[in-house]
């Protein structure tokens, strides 16, 4: 590789514009300009130097800020598209998504669905956009940070005249470089917390160089964040399950490999009421009607003791009692259980009596557990009832036959066989809520509904997310980097004696107004002229 040797003796990498050491202009083109381009200290960026191989071309594509900004803008527009209609995860779970979008939003909804915008944020092209931003972040940063580090690390105190006079803030003081004025200047610089380096009476004062690394630090944070997001797709890193537990029920917690069990003691739903919750809310409650105050599941967490053979009842040790509320999940061993849903008054048990129609005489009660009905219920004196069929969520299917929609007892129906001494063969009766059908003609007996027992059900999300700490780390590093880059500015002042005069030049990576005001203070009382703005109205940069 042909390296460039500057007249000061420093050897620069190929492609360097301004000598890393003395700032001398190494490229002829740059000499024509009134001011040097200080953006990356005129260092040799790979993307500006090589453009031959396919690797060079890919590198150059992703290292361009223009490409980066386009990626950001396209992602921005795409993200906005996804908010025009609700995403699939937010639509009510009835029927198919295709029907829902067309039903609700007409042709536009159909188009939206056909384009796949109902699941936009997990579409392949959206993920490619995010991935491209990730690649751009890595390459952009590497392309700039390495040469920038070299240039800032190798800069020397005495800078080339051509470099100094092409700085935005530049001044020549006719006063000879008396040690008094320079001493005063140095004192003032120290008061402003500049670190000062000297070489042959020339001065380089510098502060807050670390803020130059801010952008790269925040990019590292973003990359870590994105990696954290990707890890979610690794099996075992991320668990998202819902478990429904009825009051009084104990269930194994999914994904814990049968280690943990949860018992639901009670589910509580509380509403605000005007008497107890203070009158300040009175007006709001009058206008909005009911407002929920609390969703809460009182649970007990158990851990299995020892090994069990499948089918054997496990022995459980109590770990703790807990009240799960919204915003207060139950946490254990990397898992968290969240209160997310509920169902009030679900049918749980039903009680019927066997009754002789004519006399109304009763021959005993049966209580049916709707989640575990028995095949047959024996009553005294030779009476008994068989449950021939059970439909927890009864409907007539498309063939007109009785069927069940689900296993949840939303609308239980039974076919009973009532065996009595009068009818030892048994009488068949179909019993649903508010409905009785006697398919074999008139019966002498019937099953009369007596009572129902209901229970509340808690819907809990079981969550484990091993990516959280990586995501948090990424977020933290991003914040540090963005604050580092935004709240401090890298400021430098060069002072050089040239032919018995004092040359001064100032530079900052941003906030020129602030630097100018600071220089006014620093030069006060030194007898030296404050470096002046050389930039005219065109072509100013931040």
């Amino acid at each position, binding site marked *: 590789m042909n390296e460039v040797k500057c007249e000061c003796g420093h050897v620069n990498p190929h492609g360097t514009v301004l000598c890393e050491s003395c700032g001398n202009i190494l490229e002829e083109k740059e000499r024509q300009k009134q001011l040097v381009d200080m953006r990356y200290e005129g260092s040799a960026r790979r993307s500006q130097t090589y453009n031959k191989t396919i690797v060079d071309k890919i590198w150059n594509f992703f290292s361009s800020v223009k490409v*980066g900004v386009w990626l950001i803008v396209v992602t*921005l527009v795409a*993200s906005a598209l996804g908010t025009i209609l609700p995403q699939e995860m937010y639509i009510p779970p009835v029927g198919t998504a295709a029907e829902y979008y067309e039903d609700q*939003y007409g042709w536009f909804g159909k188009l939206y669905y056909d384009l796949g915008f109902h699941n936009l944020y997990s579409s392949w092209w959206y993920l490619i956009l995010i991935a491209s931003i990730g690649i751009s972040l890595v390459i952009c940063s590497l392309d700039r940070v390495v040469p920038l580090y070299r240039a800032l690390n190798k800069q020397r105190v005495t800078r080339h005249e051509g470099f100094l006079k092409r700085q935005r803030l530049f001044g020549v003081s006719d006063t000879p470089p008396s040690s008094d004025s320079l001493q005063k200047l140095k004192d003032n610089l120290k008061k402003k917390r500049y670190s000062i380096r000297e070489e042959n009476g020339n001065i380089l004062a510098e502060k807050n160089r670390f803020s130059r690394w801010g952008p790269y630090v925040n990019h590292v944070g973003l990359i870590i964040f994105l990696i954290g997001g990707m890890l979610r797709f690794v099996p075992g890193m991320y668990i998202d399950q819902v478990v429904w537990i009825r009051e009084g029920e104990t269930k194994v917690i999914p994904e814990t490999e049968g280690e943990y069990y949860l018992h639901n003691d009670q589910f509580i739903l509380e509403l605000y009421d005007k008497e107890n919750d203070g009158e300040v*809310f009175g007006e709001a409650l009058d206008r909005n009607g009911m407002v929920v105050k609390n969703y809460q599941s009182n649970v007990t967490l158990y851990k299995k003791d020892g090994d069990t053979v499948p089918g054997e009842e496990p022995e459980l040790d109590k770990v703790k009692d807990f009240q799960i509320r919204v915003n207060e999940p139950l946490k254990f061993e990397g898992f968290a259980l969240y209160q997310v849903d509920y169902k009030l008054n679900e049918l749980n048990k039903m009680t019927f009596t066997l009754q002789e129609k004519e006399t109304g005489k009763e021959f005993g009660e049966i209580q049916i557990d709707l989640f575990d009905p028995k095949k047959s219920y024996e009553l005294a004196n030779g009476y008994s009832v068989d449950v021939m069929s059970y439909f927890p969520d009864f409907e007539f299917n498309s063939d007109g036959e009785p069927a069940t929609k689900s296993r949840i007892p939303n609308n239980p129906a039974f076919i009973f066989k009532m065996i009595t001494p009068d009818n030892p063969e048994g009488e068949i009766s179909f019993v649903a809520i508010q409905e009785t059908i006697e398919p074999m003609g008139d019966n002498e007996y019937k099953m009369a509904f007596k009572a129902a027992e209901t229970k509340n059900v808690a819907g809990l999300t079981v969550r484990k997310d091993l990516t959280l700490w990586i995501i948090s780390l990424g977020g933290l590093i991003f914040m540090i980097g963005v604050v580092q880059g935004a709240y401090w500015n890298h400021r430098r002042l060069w002072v050089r004696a040239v032919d018995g005069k004092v040359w001064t030049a100032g530079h900052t990576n941003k906030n020129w107004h602030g630097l100018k005001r600071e220089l006014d203070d620093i030069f006060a009382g030194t007898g030296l002229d404050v470096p002046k703005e050389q930039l005219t109205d065109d072509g*100013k940069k931040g």
Partner: protein
Amino acid sequence: MVSLSSNLLYIAFVLYLVATAFFGGAIKGKKEGQEAKGSNKWAKIAITITIAGFIAQLGYFITRWIAAGHAPVSNLFEFTTFFGMSLVGAFIVIYFMYQTPLLGVFTLPVAILIIAYASMFPREISPLIPALQSDWLHIHVTTAALGEAILAVSFAAGLIYLIKSVDQSVKTKSTFWLEAVMYGIVSTIGFIVVASIFSFADYQAEFTYTDKNGVQATYEYHMPALIGPNEGELITEGRFAPIVETPAIINSKKLNTVIWSLAAGLLLYWLIRLVARKRLAAILKPLVKNVNLDLVDEISYRSVLIGFPVFTLGALIFAMIWAQIAWTRFWGWDPKEVWALITWLFYAAFLHLRLSKGWHGEKSAWLAVIGFVIIMFNLIVVNLVIAGLHSYAGS
């Protein structure tokens, strides 16, 4: 306590109005050609009144917090009011950095409009639903609002830049879009005026209509219905019957409000133009004649630099922490979340264009204006139209 709280807000509102007038005096009091560096008497009085107003509003915030038992940032009125207060706070800080009274002439009216806009929404203290019962409510919401407020200062500075730099002697794209911004501001005034008039007159008209699920429902309009609901029937007697009927998918009541606001805005806008025979931006131009463009550009950029990290912290990071606790996941592509991301992406693009592509001055000022439009979109349209998990009680 509640009435003390509303009185303090009212006092703050009046003080901001007075302070604006004094800032106006501060820039008028200058001789031609003099830099708008304000250590003059008018500016001092103006900033003192602004601070007094800010303290009064802080008083409103604290007393309302005590009365409600939770930070008053839980519905659209409370959040928007707080946003207005943050804007004043951000202005005060930036005023002391750059000492430009002109910034007050533009920032305070924006804050006043925002607070007035907020009070058009239901103002009662509402109890918190379970998801909002968390300390993260005030941590997340206040930081996000503060970040947006600092970014809004950049809009005010950008607007000053454009009013000064855009040539009003010829008709260009720039003059058109600048007038569009002016019209947007005037329409907000239109909304406030119309809503106040009908609210004062206690206008009510009830409609029954068929909603998009084919179910009968009722709407209560508080403005005369130019746009009626789907198969709507006016129940209240002696009220204005709608001119047009909308399909069921559109919320006719909100659309009606929007049309009233835009129409009132248009009326106001044309009245001003007829009287002045100039574009609105041209009317404002003499106000900014003494300002240093470089300085305004710097203020605009500086506000973005200060506001961006605060916004990221409040609207994304704190938001994600809370979402993880309340909704089981830190990110769920809820419309409000997405629009916070869009805002963040936009300002990230802004910073890259400025730092690496050298977009400064007029280009940068336009970006600051667009950024504010996005923030307002997220505040108004996303809450009222798109809604989602963040649906504050509004209507």
